[in-house]
């Protein structure tokens, strides 16, 4: 019987190949999108699940709110020892910033910069699924002056991985390579490239550079332990007590948002948007399938009648038509898989992941199940509908004219139209919002600015202009240089509580940064009152502690800071002193200038620039340059830095690029929405085309008669299109409120937002209307141009 169903299905497909192809192709696109998104979702949720006992591992987070840094994954090493005292803790592991002191290394005279170097406790393999390619990882992490290199770095420096025992020399000695490990997979939040031996001192209390991971026993009560752990933690000698909490390892990818993370995590909201969009695409494709199958069903009416007369029950017929749609859906899946293979590389580039379709894994089963599910869901209504045909009417030669489920078809078309309209509106508003964000006055210039990261303070951050800074300044095409204590697009990590000139205390930490002379000019800040830092004023550069251990420094504050200090007329703060009372770092800051607010990251506006303040050991050199000289400037910068600082391969960025990167995540999601929108419109039009073809065929005779009676081609086309345009209009009624609500919700993610404007809504509606008209017209025009005699003769 199944072969009989199969032959009937295949021959029916063949007979009506246009609709068959439209149907299969539509389903393929929908399924393809769904497969990609399923892979993406699966990948996003796979982060760190490969680590040993991943579900029992937690990372310690420390709340640095007092310093204006939020929750940060770093703490003191002694917390490792502290946690191990608890019976609920099975093991603890620390990953420690190594600093940049020894990371500029030389091999056979050639300089290299080792990036992302960490120290780690030797029990790393209890926490991270490491694949050691050569040597002994544990030995490397427990022997002084040892280094374990990631495969990538080993290949970069040595060209192969068999480098155990090789030496890399740095400024104050040399490293012995004792292990080489495979590159870390993409789906982990860990991102170290080299691991160096690091002596950990459990008695050390100042150092907050340890990421601490704790593995609890299987019976452990996490909440209870977390509370106890936090209570027992000891206050930092200068920063006081900062609350500790535990974050599950497997959640880090989505939940860890700190700027200090090893790498940028994922966004659950974005994943959900992707899932929603692919569900919409499948829905539209299924609607097409339902619509076209039902519209075409009269063609199968005779078969249904005959089969019923021959003793087929309704159930048998439903099964038959369901297996047909499942067959179609399976076929569509095969095509979808090829589409996925084609598109996946571009999608990977878009989302910055390495997704792959692996037919050997459970992927294949999931995909087949999905195909069957879509086939059954999309096929159920048509199957029930077709199998309900009355055998009597069909068989007594009484051709089926009555209802072909027009109501259902119309509803589905309305839904499709509203989805298309809503998606267009969302795309346009999202793009408007992103363009708006990027056009906001930043308070500083990004154009023609080059930033060199990580130049050690002693070489550039000095009161007297250093040799290196002078040389950098003299490169042809460089107009100005200044030194900064933060990267202009990333919020400074450092802040402190202040006492305002009126003696009041600031309620929370105010971000501060060190800066060199002429920072207003170098960053292109907008001066509202006072002046720039200048070597002409000897009091600007920070003086070492003299009287009562208080340091003195010139300060430039942003407008918001001045307001916060209680100066509604910002010029009045000039000459006043803001002070940092903390015993170790007591500082008097004399305000010399006020600048317009600067927008950093997601909108932070308060900042105090302090001339010569040593908040870092390595600083950023900002260079204002002539863009046409960029290549030679970059080359000379690298060369000069190498010569003067023994720091190799410095990181050099165009500020414009870094600024764009801030919005990359939002840009990506807006791109995904745009692509889905195109697909949705395309699929909807595919459906409209199929139905229009059917409707034109049905009204062929009417068209012919009207033509004989003298109707123009255009009036006939409009007559045919009217039915569809009416449905689009109805779609608008649903689309407008729903999109308005969704977009308003999305916009709450931002501090500064665009207004939702009426023309976007009208434009989207008009666009869908126009495309619908064109689709129908392309068919209607042909029908209306056929000589009526050709059609009427057949009657």
């Amino acid at each position, binding site marked *: 019987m199944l072969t*009989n169903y199969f*032959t009937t299905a295949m021959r029916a497909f063949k007979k009506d190949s246009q609709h068959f192809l439209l149907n299969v192709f539509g389903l393929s696109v929908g399924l393809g999108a769904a497969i990609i998104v399923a892979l993406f979702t699966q990948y996003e949720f796979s982060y760190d699940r490969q680590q040993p006992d991943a579900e029992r591992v937690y990372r310690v987070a420390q709340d640095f709110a007092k310093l204006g840094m939020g929750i940060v994954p770093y703490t003191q090493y002694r917390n490792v020892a502290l946690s191990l005292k608890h019976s609920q803790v099975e093991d603890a592991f620390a990953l420690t910033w190594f600093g940049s002191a020894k990371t500029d290394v030389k091999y056979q005279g050639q300089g290299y910069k080792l990036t992302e170097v960490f120290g780690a406790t030797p029990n790393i393999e209890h926490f991270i699924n490491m694949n050691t390619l050569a040597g002994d990882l544990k030995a490397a992490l427990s022997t002084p002056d040892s280094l374990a290199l990631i495969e990538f770095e080993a290949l970069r420096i040595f060209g192969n991985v068999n480098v155990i025992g090789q030496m890399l020399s740095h400024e104050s000695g040399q490293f012995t390579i004792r292990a080489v490990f495979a590159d870390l997979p993409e789906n982990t939040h860990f991102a170290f490239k080299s691991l160096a031996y690091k002596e950990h001192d459990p008695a050390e209390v100042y150092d907050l550079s340890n990421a601490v991971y704790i593995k609890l026993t299987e019976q452990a009560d996490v909440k209870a332990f977390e509370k106890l752990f936090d209570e027992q933690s000891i206050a930092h000698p200068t920063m006081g007590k900062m609350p500790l909490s535990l974050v599950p390892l497997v959640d880090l990818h989505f939940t860890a948002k700190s700027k200090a993370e090893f790498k940028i995590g994922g966004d659950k909201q974005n994943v959900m948007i992707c899932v929603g969009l692919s569900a919409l695409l499948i829905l539209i494709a299924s609607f097409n399938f339902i619509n076209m199958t039902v519209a075409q069903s009269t063609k199968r009416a005779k078969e249904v009648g005959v089969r019923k*007369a*021959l*003793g087929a*029950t309704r159930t048998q017929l439903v099964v038959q038509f369901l297996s047909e749609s499942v067959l179609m859906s399976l076929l569509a899946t095969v095509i979808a898989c090829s589409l996925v293979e084609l598109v996946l590389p571009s999608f990977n580039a878009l989302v910055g992941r390495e997704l792959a379709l692996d037919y050997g894994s459970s992927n294949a089963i999931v995909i087949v199940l999905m195909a069957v599910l879509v086939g059954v869901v999309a096929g159920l209504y048509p199957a029930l509908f077709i199998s309900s045909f009355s055998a009597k009417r069909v068989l*007594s030669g009484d051709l089926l004219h009555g209802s072909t489920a027009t109501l259902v078809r119309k509803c589905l078309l309305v839904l499709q139209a509203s989805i298309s309209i809503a998606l267009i509106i969302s795309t346009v508003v999202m793009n408007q919002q992103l363009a708006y964000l990027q056009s906001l006055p930043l308070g500083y210039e990004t154009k023609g600015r080059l930033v060199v990261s990580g130049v050690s303070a002693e070489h550039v951050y000095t009161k007297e202009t250093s040799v290196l800074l002078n040389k950098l300044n003299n490169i042809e095409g460089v107009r100005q240089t200044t030194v900064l204590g933060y990267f202009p697009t990333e919020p400074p990590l450092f802040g402190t509580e202040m006492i305002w000139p009126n003696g009041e205390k600031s309620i929370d930490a105010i971000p501060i940064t060190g800066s060199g002379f002429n920072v207003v000019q170098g960053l292109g800040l907008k001066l509202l009152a006072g002046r720039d830092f200048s070597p002409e004023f000897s009091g600007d550069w920070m003086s070492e502690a003299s009287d009562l251990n208080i340091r003195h420094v010139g300060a430039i504050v942003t407008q918001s800071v001045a307001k916060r200090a209680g100066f509604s007329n910002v010029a009045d703060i000039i000459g006043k002193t803001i002070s940092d009372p903390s015993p170790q770092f007591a500082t008097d800051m004399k305000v010399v200038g006020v600048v317009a607010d600067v927008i950093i990251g997601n909108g932070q506006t308060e900042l105090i620039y302090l001339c010569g303040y040593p908040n870092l050991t390595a600083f950023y050199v900002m260079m204002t340059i002539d863009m046409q000289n960029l290549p030679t400037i970059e080359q000379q910068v690298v060369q000069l830095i190498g010569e003067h600082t023994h720091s190799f391969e410095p990181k050099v960025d165009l500020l414009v690029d870094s600024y764009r990167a801030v919005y990359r995540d939002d840009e990506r999601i807006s791109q995904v929405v745009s692509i889905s929108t195109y697909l949705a419109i395309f699929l909807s039009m595919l459906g409209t085309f199929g139905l229009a073809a059917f409707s034109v065929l049905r009204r062929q005779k009417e068209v012919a008669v009207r033509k004989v009676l003298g109707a123009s081609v255009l009036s006939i086309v409009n007559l045919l299109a009217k039915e569809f345009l009416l449905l689009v209009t109805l779609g608008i009624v649903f689309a407008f409120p729903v999109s308005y609500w969704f977009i308003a919700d999305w916009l709450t993610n931002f501090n500064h937002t665009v207004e939702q404007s009426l023309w976007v809504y009208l434009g989207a509606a008009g666009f869908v209307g126009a495309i619908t008209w064109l689709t129908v017209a392309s068919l209607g025009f042909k029908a209306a141009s056929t000589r009526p005699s050709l059609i009427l003769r057949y009657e």
Partner: protein
Amino acid sequence: MISLNNLTRVYRASDVETTALKSINLTVKEGEFIAIMGPSGCGKSTLLSILGMLDSPSSGCYQFNGDDISDYSEAKLAQLRKTSIGFVFQSFNLIDELTVYENVELPLQYLKISKKQRKDRVEAILRRMAIDHRADHLPQQLSGGQQQRVAVARALVINPKLILADEPTGNLDSKNGEAVMNMLRALNQAGTTVIMVTHAEKEGNYADRLVRLLDGQIMVDKASQTIDTTEVA
């Protein structure tokens, strides 16, 4: 074999009511050959499809082999249909997507008969209908007469007790029509009950008994030999 008692069929389409059959009483004995005649729209096809259990009466009672089938489930009706009734239609109603062989095989598949047996029976019946050389053709590749022979073969392949034919010769020329009539006649003589709707008086003569319908009611029910041409006019 069949007994209809005060049977009525009313169609309700939105607000229009059509009474297609009104208080029909009819008894059919095994081995009979009945012709149903009447003007267009008088309810012939409706009566036939009720007899074939493709449609159910609005009221009244239908007994088949002594059982009242009004409360039979759909599955049970389908079961009865596929084991005992063969249909022949005016418009042949062959499935266009299946070959001649597959069309004839179809009822046997619904009866879950083994493949080997199906092959034997289909080939035998096609030979009997002299259409075996066209077994692999699709219906559209055959002439009307050939298609109707295939349809008859499909009706006969299950060895039905009852054959229902709705204007079986309506789309055929007189020569082919006659051949189909002779076939039905021969079947009847072999013991199968035949009920046939027809427009042609001449074909009415093949039957033993003639039932005339008018506006959904039985006007005449008698042995056909006694038909007198004046009545027809």
